[in-house]
């Protein structure tokens, strides 16, 4: 697995993969007031190739359920794999300072 991922090194993201993943993110987080989606190729702290997706959200008038966000992140990881990019995707969601969040869906 590592050898497959390493083939990517810091190679940039193919434009069709980049476009598809950003589009998918906007669709998946439709109810979460997406302002911006950024996707870059990078390395993690060990130097392993990864993708970093940063999703900026506007203020939503309901609590954002972090468990739901995580499930959608997972769907996006699977989508990247389906598109042929085996790099692990790290997500950061940037919320409005006033945004209320809930920790689980229990």
């Amino acid at each position, binding site marked *: 697995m*590592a050898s497959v991922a390493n083939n990517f090194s810091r190679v940039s993201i193919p434009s069709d993969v980049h476009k598809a993943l950003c589009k998918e993110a906007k669709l998946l987080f439709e109810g979460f007031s997406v302002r911006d989606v950024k996707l870059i190729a990078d390395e993690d*702290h*060990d130097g392993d190739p990864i993708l970093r997706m940063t999703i900026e959200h506007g203020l939503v008038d309901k609590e954002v359920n*972090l*468990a739901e966000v995580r499930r959608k992140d997972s769907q996006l990881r699977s989508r990247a794999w389906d598109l042929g990019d085996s790099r692990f995707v790290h997500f950061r969601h940037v*919320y409005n300072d006033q945004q209320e969040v809930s*920790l689980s869906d229990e």
Partner: protein
Amino acid sequence: MSDDLLVLARRLIKNSGAQKPRQIYLKRAVSTAYYAVFHAMAKSNADMFLGVAKASRSETAWQQAYRALDHGPAKTACQAAQNLNFPVGIKACAAAFATLQEKRHSCDYDPLHRLTRQDALDALAEATAAVKALKLATPKDR
């Protein structure tokens, strides 16, 4: 240990300050959340190798198995697990390990790294779900 670490992470966030949260509290919370998952995984591995019942296992061997978990190789395996046929809970736990390890590294070693309260809550939520998922997993999948 992992449950206590989750409680500690929650307290750190709660005590970080309402208006302008202190970065050190948020950073320690994220780091602690990672270690909650790390120790849950270490215990799970040791239990799978040597058994849960203390009476029927060598405590020295169990301790060695517990301490054998290595951050780097474990992260690589957890990333690879995303594309293997594991149950959803195991995949979520593995993803949390890789994700939180990267966050911990930024929190512990990057002095310019800044967190929001939501970032820390997100890490706590992910760690809590990961520890729970690992506990609920069948021995076959662990």
